């Protein structure tokens, strides 16, 4: 029983990292931009949030946890959104290929994260291991009282505030996309930017905003990983391939934020399943680690078999839009 509870807890924590990235990517893809730079952007968000908190705590004898949290959130979101801005300038204004730009951004972002992660202590004057105790503790703080309830408290209330924030963001994003006029406009652009333009929607503005905000959201996933999962420390390449899993989750969720929530928990569970199946040899563990990707491929193949309209990617996904060439 207790093993099962731990498994579910771990799966949820893994899932939330991926969910932030997937929500950002859904927001971006709904505007017709396939941003393959998300893995890099998540690295950028993670390290920037950590650095923000680190420099705040270093210069402050009595750091305030709340200020540290706000600074790190702001840094992570801003730098990640800047990553999205690079992508937007190149693909929207300069109309270069989205895949190529995204991959270059991933190379840059991963390097950016590992570079600053590896040299932050040196740049700060050689203080050894980076740690952001005060801010980190605020991120990992559980809900008082509620988390003490047996079983239920462990399952539902034993996470840091960013876990709940993520679920709220997912619900809000879903309402925004499917219940508001702005959401409708955004989806129209993703399906057919030419028609949306003719209907008087400012295509460029929407694409820029959704890509940058989406990137910012994805950046919070990196921050979540650094702060809640690793407790405020950095390991080179520690984030691993979770960014690509986020891209995979978007497909798995069929571009719907609410699907992404349970999809993320499922991916999180598949990601760590190999640790919890007794009697699994080392070689079989490696096979199990491929599960999230195999499942995504299967979903991809099935959606292409069935050709159901509401399960397809946005029709304009990956295509550049140039008004004069309609």
């Amino acid at each position, binding site marked *: 029983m207790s093993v099962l509870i731990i498994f579910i807890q771990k799966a949820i924590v893994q899932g939330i990292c991926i969910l932030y990235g997937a929500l950002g990517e859904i927001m971006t893809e709904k505007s017709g931009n396939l941003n393959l730079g998300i893995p890099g952007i998540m690295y950028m968000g993670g390290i920037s949030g950590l650095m923000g908190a680190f420099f705040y705590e270093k210069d402050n004898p009595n750091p305030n946890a709340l200020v540290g949290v706000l600074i790190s959130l702001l840094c992570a979101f801003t730098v990640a959104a800047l990553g999205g801005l690079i992508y937007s300038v190149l693909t929207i204004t*300069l109309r270069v290929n989205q895949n190529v730009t995204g991959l270059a951004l991933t190379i*840059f972002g991963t390097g950016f994260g590992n*570079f600053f992660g590896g040299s932050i202590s040196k740049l700060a004057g050689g203080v050894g291991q980076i740690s952001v105790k005060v801010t980190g503790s605020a991120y990992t703080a559980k809900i008082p009282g509620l988390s003490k309830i047996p079983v239920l408290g462990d399952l539902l209330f034993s996470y840091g505030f960013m876990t709940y924030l993520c679920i709220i963001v997912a619900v809000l994003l879903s309402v925004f996309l499917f219940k508001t006029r702005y959401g409708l406009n955004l989806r129209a652009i993703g399906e057919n930017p030419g028609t949306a333009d003719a209907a008087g929607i400012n295509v460029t503005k929407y694409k820029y905003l959704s890509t940058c905000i989406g990137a910012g959201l994805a950046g919070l996933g990196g921050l979540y990983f650094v702060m809640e999962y690793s407790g405020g420390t950095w390991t080179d390449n520690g984030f691993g391939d979770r960014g*690509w899993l986020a891209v995979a989750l978007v497909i798995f969720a069929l571009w719907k934020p609410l699907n992404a929530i349970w999809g993320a928990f499922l991916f999180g569970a598949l990601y760590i399943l190999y640790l919890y199946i007794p009697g699994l040899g080392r*070689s079989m563990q490696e096979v199990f680690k491929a599960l999230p990707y*195999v499942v995504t491929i299967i979903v991809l193949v099935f959606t292409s*078999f069935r050709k159901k309209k509401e399960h397809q990617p946005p029709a304009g996904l990956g295509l550049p839009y140039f008004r*004069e060439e309609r």
Partner: protein
Amino acid sequence: MKKEPFLKMSRREKISWQKRLMIRIAALLLSLLVCAGVIFLLVRMNPFDVYKAIWDGALGSERRIWITIRDTMILLCIAIGLAPAFKMRFWNIGAEGQILVGGACAAAAMIYAGDKMPPVLLLVVMFVCSALGGMVWGMIPAVFKAYWNTNETLFTLMLNYVAMQIVTFCIVFWENPKGSNTVGIINQSTQAGWLPELFGQKYGWNVLIVLVFTVVMFIYLKYSKHGYEISVVGESENTARYAGIRVRKVIIRTMAISGAICGIAGFVIVSGASHTISTATADGRGFTAIIVAWLSKFNTFIMLAVSFGIVFMQQGAVQIATQYGLNENASDVILGIILFFLIGAEFFINYKVERAKK
């Protein structure tokens, strides 16, 4: 009343190669300036010293020159493999996986048949196995694309990680010494399955194999019937169908070729450079090569120049990192900045920007 935009953009009909080259060089210079600024901000050193260090790192000694050549050839080989797929507008993001599968096949042949075959036959078997491995890995998404129009960008991307797990799966059986979780140098004592020296050069065969591919692929894409079919399918599948081209066959055949060459790149890495296999065998080069292939517009000789430029900068950045105690990941940051500029330059090659006339 809305204001007229200040700048007017229009698509260029044609651009001379001199002008194209000038735009690229301008972009490269600009990116180097920005990189120098970034490096100056980080380590407060003279940018000219930085560029001297880059030059030293890439071409400073004979050994370094050969490492630069070796890595250029590998990157070029992958880009050549991607070229036909991209010309067909098939987004093969899966080179990374195709390299790993090819490399794993080559390593398997080395390990299991290393002492059972004459050396030349072993090399041939390795070559064929890695080509077949990469081919299968490339054909899986192609079949689904051809018959059900499954999104190939995402499919090939996912297959990369499946391939990575296949490699870690194999490592469990091949690890040497036991418990190290790495394969180590394969056949270190016998050197069976290692590409031998050619003309007294350690990497001679690597260069020869890849250069042959460069020429053959150039001719294949430009002058063969297959190459023509690929470009028609790339322009418009409907036109191709109307012209009597069997689109499905072309898609699957082209991805078989693309995957096979990426698999051979895995062979070149395992047999001709690292003599081992790990998840780092591809090391992101499958992704970098995508950018190389796209920037070169399917011209394999331009790919040679672009690959060299990128490897040159990477080697240089590694040198800066070690010389000035920076983290080695600085090279990825610098590479990223340069790529942004080169990619952005494509806009000025394809479009003309003018002041709007009153």
